[in-house]
């Protein structure tokens, strides 16, 4: 019977979705093209039932089937504050606790084992669900229905535990992994965190002692470029860049000086306006940078008793008396301040605003607006996802019995199909009524009563209604899910990928292997988050530990593997394509200048990152840049459209940088320090080729390496054809770089144009675009 159930009942699974599922359905090609010739490799330790159906452990069955059943039919009432909260069967939700699954499994099993002698020793769980014994929620399932069969199976598993085990890998999880070299780790770190190539000293240091990379990480994370990196990463999480008019986030009745910059239409007025908007828009992310820069506990994102201003927004908030900027015109300088009460804030003038990190940031919440009927539920969703890794929208993906809603008074509370989510969401949403989106206090008496205000099963104390948001920040920052969520956010910032989610469909191919992948990643997340807490919530620790993690340092495998093993390790590695912002920074690091759009007179691909929606860069959106408004997610895989941007970039950057580099003294050249422009001697050409491979691709090769030989042959073929072409008139005798709006250089021997082809070749390589 159990086997049949596996076929029929999986339709009810699907509770634990949420983050982007990067484990999805990836089928690694078999060896039809000779790649995976060696299909040896470890297989997971999987029990298999008689007819070949994977054996599902009780834990997995509960998570994927029973738990979903409970969500659908029981959790609307049998939770704290639910209509059945007076009963002894009270479950936890993921929003209450990070151990809700284990707790509920134990609770369910306890009740499943109870026997009612008046009904053939049946469990009261089933008797209640069928309303055979009195049930406040009456009959919630039909006898012999699919749901009844599922419940029976779940009860049977509690009474007679299955022998099926959790899937485990056949050997060490990282078996066969060839790790990234220390040099590659160094180059990746300097590019990511410092937007630069490693120095000769750093390379020597790591070559001689790989363990010194830890100190290099520390040094990199003190550099201003690191905070630029961090800002870009958090901008992709907070999306405040998508806010059109940040000054509208504040009420002029509270801050009469908000538009201090108003005046005649002059460049100065415009500068003041834009700089003020930058100050307001960037306040949330600058608060994060301030915490990290100071080495303060990262819990400050929820509890900091200040906000950030630049010299311009300081005027808007009338807090110039609190700050002293070395350069009063530096719009990129930010300092902490405490906003004042008074005006129409609802706060006495002698008191300061009760800041609570991002939770009290009007500009942040303006990006996630509410309505008179949404009542802060959108904000609650953002709060849970960003700070606690709880996706409210996935708590109960399936509803049934919607037909019964008519006639129910206040269905959000009294109809289990609605209350199952709202009982989690609304206590926090209620708290966000503390201050409205203009930062004006709403008296407790005027709050729209939803559920009792609270968080994670704890009611808001009566004494904290005036600063309820701060109370929420205090609670959430101490929650065990907070460091987990921050560890995941750090992973996202580094990889642009969300972490794996638990596979929910046990019938899909390679379920066991997907589960192994998920469990392995979870274990690493917990390891890193524990260190984060031990290190007093220092966010730099997260970055450093992830960069050093074996999960993100994989160069290759030592042999081909099975499809199943591929599923287990697919998420390993950094392996993400450069964003337009990172592509531009890499170009600058290598060539000393950006990919410049000669015709438009500005950057070709880099937007004004982290500042505004102004998008001058023609190829930013075509290379999957996001504007944090219509587009908030970066795409994973390049399409032909992105391919075209890459092709154009390679041509233009090569054109803009090759010939002109020869004009510099050899010691100042970035690309050709070892040769003259007319050099054709093979040894020297190879020497410079080796240099370019390392500079552009990070590959350290010998002059006689096969890849260098391939590149040399390419250079030589083009040079010979070109030299002959110049002689017979097919080609110009100049380097023809006028297309790039550079000066024209004599190139009778066609050597410069041959080098340009080599630069295009290298700029088209996988190892240039992927980090």
């Amino acid at each position, binding site marked *: 019977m159990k086997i049949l159930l596996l076929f029929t009942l999986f339709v*009810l699974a699907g509770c634990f979705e949420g983050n982007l599922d990067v484990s999805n359905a990836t089928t690694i090609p078999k060896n039809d*093209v000779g790649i995976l010739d060696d299909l040896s490799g470890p297989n997971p330790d999987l029990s298999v039932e008689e007819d070949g159906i994977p054996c599902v452990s009780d834990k997995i069955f509960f998570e994927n089937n029973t738990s979903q059943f409970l969500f659908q039919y029981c959790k609307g009432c049998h939770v704290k504050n639910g209509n059945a909260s007076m009963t002894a069967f009270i479950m936890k939700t993921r929003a209450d606790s990070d151990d809700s699954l284990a707790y509920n499994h134990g609770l369910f099993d306890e009740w499943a084992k109870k026997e009612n002698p008046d009904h053939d020793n049946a469990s009261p769980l089933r008797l209640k669900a069928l309303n055979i014994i009195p049930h406040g929620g009456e009959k919630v399932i039909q006898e012999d229905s699919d749901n009844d069969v599922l419940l029976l199976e779940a009860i049977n598993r509690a009474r007679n535990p299955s022998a099926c085990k959790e899937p485990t890998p056949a050997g060490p999880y990282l078996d066969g992994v060839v790790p990234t070299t220390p040099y590659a780790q160094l180059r990746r770190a300097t590019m990511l965190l410092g937007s630069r190539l490693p120095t000769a000293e750093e390379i020597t240091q790591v070559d001689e002692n790989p363990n010194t990379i830890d100190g290099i990480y520390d040094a990199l994370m003190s550099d201003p470029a690191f905070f630029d990196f961090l800002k870009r990463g958090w901008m992709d999480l907070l999306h405040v860049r998508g806010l059109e008019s940040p000054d509208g986030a504040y009420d002029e009745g509270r801050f009469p000086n908000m538009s201090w910059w108003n005046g005649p239409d002059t460049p100065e007025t415009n500068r003041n306006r834009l700089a003020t908007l930058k100050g307001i828009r960037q306040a949330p992310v600058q608060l994060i940078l301030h915490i990290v820069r100071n080495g303060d506990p990262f819990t400050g994102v929820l509890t900091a008793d200040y906000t950030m201003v630049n010299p311009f927004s300081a005027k808007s908030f009338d807090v110039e008396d609190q700050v002293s900027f070395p350069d009063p015109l530096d719009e990129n300088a930010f300092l902490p301040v405490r906003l004042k009460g008074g005006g129409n804030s609802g706060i006495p003038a002698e008191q300061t605003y009760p800041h609570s990190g991002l939770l009290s940031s009007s500009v942040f919440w303006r990006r996630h607006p509410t309505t008179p009927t949404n009542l802060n539920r959108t904000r609650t969703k953002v709060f849970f996802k960003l700070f606690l890794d709880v996706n409210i929208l996935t708590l109960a993906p*399936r509803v049934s019995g919607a037909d019964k809603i008519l006639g129910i008074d206040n269905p959000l509370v009294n109809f289990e199909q609605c209350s199952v989510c709202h009982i989690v969401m609304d206590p926090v949403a209620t708290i966000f009524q503390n201050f409205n989106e203009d930062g004006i206090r709403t008296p407790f008496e005027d709050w729209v009563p939803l559920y009792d205000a609270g968080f994670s099963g704890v009611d808001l104390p009566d004494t904290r209604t005036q600063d309820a948001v701060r109370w929420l920040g205090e609670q959430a920052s101490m929650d065990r899910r907070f460091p987990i969520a921050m560890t995941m956010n750090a992973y996202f910032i580094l990889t642009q990928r969300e972490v794996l989610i638990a596979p929910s469909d046990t019938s899909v191919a390679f379920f066991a292997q997907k589960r192994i992948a998920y469990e392995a990643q979870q274990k690493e997340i917990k390891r890193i988050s524990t260190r984060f807490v031990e290190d007093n919530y220092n966010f730099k620790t997260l970055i450093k530990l992830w960069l050093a993690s074996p999960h993100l340092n994989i160069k290759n495998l030592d042999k081909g593997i099975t499809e199943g093993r591929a599923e287990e390790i697919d998420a390993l590695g950094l392996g993400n*394509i450069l964003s337009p912002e990172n592509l531009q920074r890499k170009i600058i690091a290598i060539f000393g200048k950006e990919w410049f759009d000669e015709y438009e007179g500005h950057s070709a691909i880099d937007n004004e990152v982290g500042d505004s929606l102004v998008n001058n860069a023609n190829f930013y959106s075509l290379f999957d840049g996001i504007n944090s408004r219509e587009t908030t997610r970066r795409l994973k895989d390049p399409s032909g459209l992105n391919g075209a941007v890459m092709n154009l970039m390679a041509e233009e950057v090569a054109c803009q940088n090759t010939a002109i580099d020869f004009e510099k003294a050899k010691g100042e050249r970035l690309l050709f320090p070892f040769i003259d422009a007319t050099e054709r001697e093979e040894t020297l050409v190879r020497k410079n080729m080796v240099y370019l491979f390392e500079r552009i691709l990070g590959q350290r090769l010998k002059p006689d390496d096969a890849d260098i030989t391939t590149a040399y042959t390419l250079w030589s073929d083009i040079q010979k054809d070109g030299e002959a072409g110049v002689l017979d008139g097919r080609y110009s005798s100049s380097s023809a770089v006028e297309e790039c709006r550079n000066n024209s250089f004599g190139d009778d021997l066609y050597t410069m144009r041959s080098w340009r082809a080599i630069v295009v070749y290298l700029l088209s390589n996988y190892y240039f675009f992927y980090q």
Partner: protein
Amino acid sequence: MMDRRDFLKLAAFSGMSVLTPNLLADQNGGALYTEGLFFINVFAGGGWDVTMFCDPKGHIDGGLSQEYQTGDIQSTGNISYAPPTPNFPANNNQHFFEKYASELLIVNGIDTTTNAHLAGTRYAATGNLQSTSYPSFAALYAATKSDGNSLPLGYLSYGSVYANTANLLPVSRLQDVDSLRRLVDTNVHREGARFRSEFSTQRVAEALKKQNEKQTKAQFHPRTKRNMATLYTAQLSARKLKELSRHLPATLPESPFERQIVLSLAACAAGICISADLELGGFDSHDNNEARQSVLLDEYTKGIELLLERAETLNIRERVLVMMTSEFSRTPVYNTTGDQIGKDHWPVNSAMFIGPGVPGNKVVGQTTEGHFAMGFDPANHVAIPYVEDQTLRITPRHISESLRKFTGISTSENAKKFALKDGDVIDIFQA
């Protein structure tokens, strides 16, 4: 030059499907999509109110529509629709339904069984509520009908539409046409001069091909190997953007929604796109339901009209299958009283289709007066009263299954790989 064999290899490396007869070789030895259906899904993001559109109900105590009575409901042929109202006279319903009724297939009473945006969006796109890893139908279709990445814009997706491709092919966003014009031939500089000689271009292309083969052969880490293949294929297929230049209009509409339509159809006409998920968002009318839905439905139907007319102009009208739906609908009752009354999420939904072979002037499925989904008898293809655990209801799974069958991909390897659960079949396209 890229040949068919190269494409097949790359498709295999990157987990993509294989070349189909719908694709004809282009000048680079690749392929363009010159025959077969285009699938365009126009998604009303946020949850539309179908009682103000294709499943009209009129006013009842406490709910449905405040704006009109049951007797005001209009119809043309077999199709009923919500009327213009005094408050919202600009309602485009009458014009839209009168114009397209003969071609329209409407499915009412779809039981989405979810009130969650993400789950509803995913279910509508894939036919699978449970799994987060299934590809959208548009992705599945494009991957099956093409050789995946060989078309530079094979699958277009906009907004917050569920766009998981399950690694079958990449997804593209196409928004900026001015810059796009500079990408149609990246060997040529803007002023017409070539960046490099034909010989240089050719030799570098050959070297890149060899380099990619070598790198992918030496790489055993699955994702890295897949990334290598995907990147190289993207660089190769970029050449086909040349085809797009012939179909781009001189100027694009200001409206982002209309721009999605025009650009997607240009890509289809150029043979470099097979499917697209378009979106008009903002339907999540928890407040001000009537006004918001009226304005958006007006924009939505005008967009559909633009889509069909533009397809006509581009001579691809007979190849365009349009799907119109949302993640769910709005509650029969209002969530508050006053001027800003809204409607919340409601799992009973509708979908509409126009395209070659779609039975027009037809409504499949039904809802009750209170907008609850009725049951459906698949044998007689009629709505019947719903009895829990005894009768079927139409679900997004049935819609996806029907689409797979209608478009001829239900027996493909991709469809098998992402099979929908066994169960009763309701073919919504049954004549």
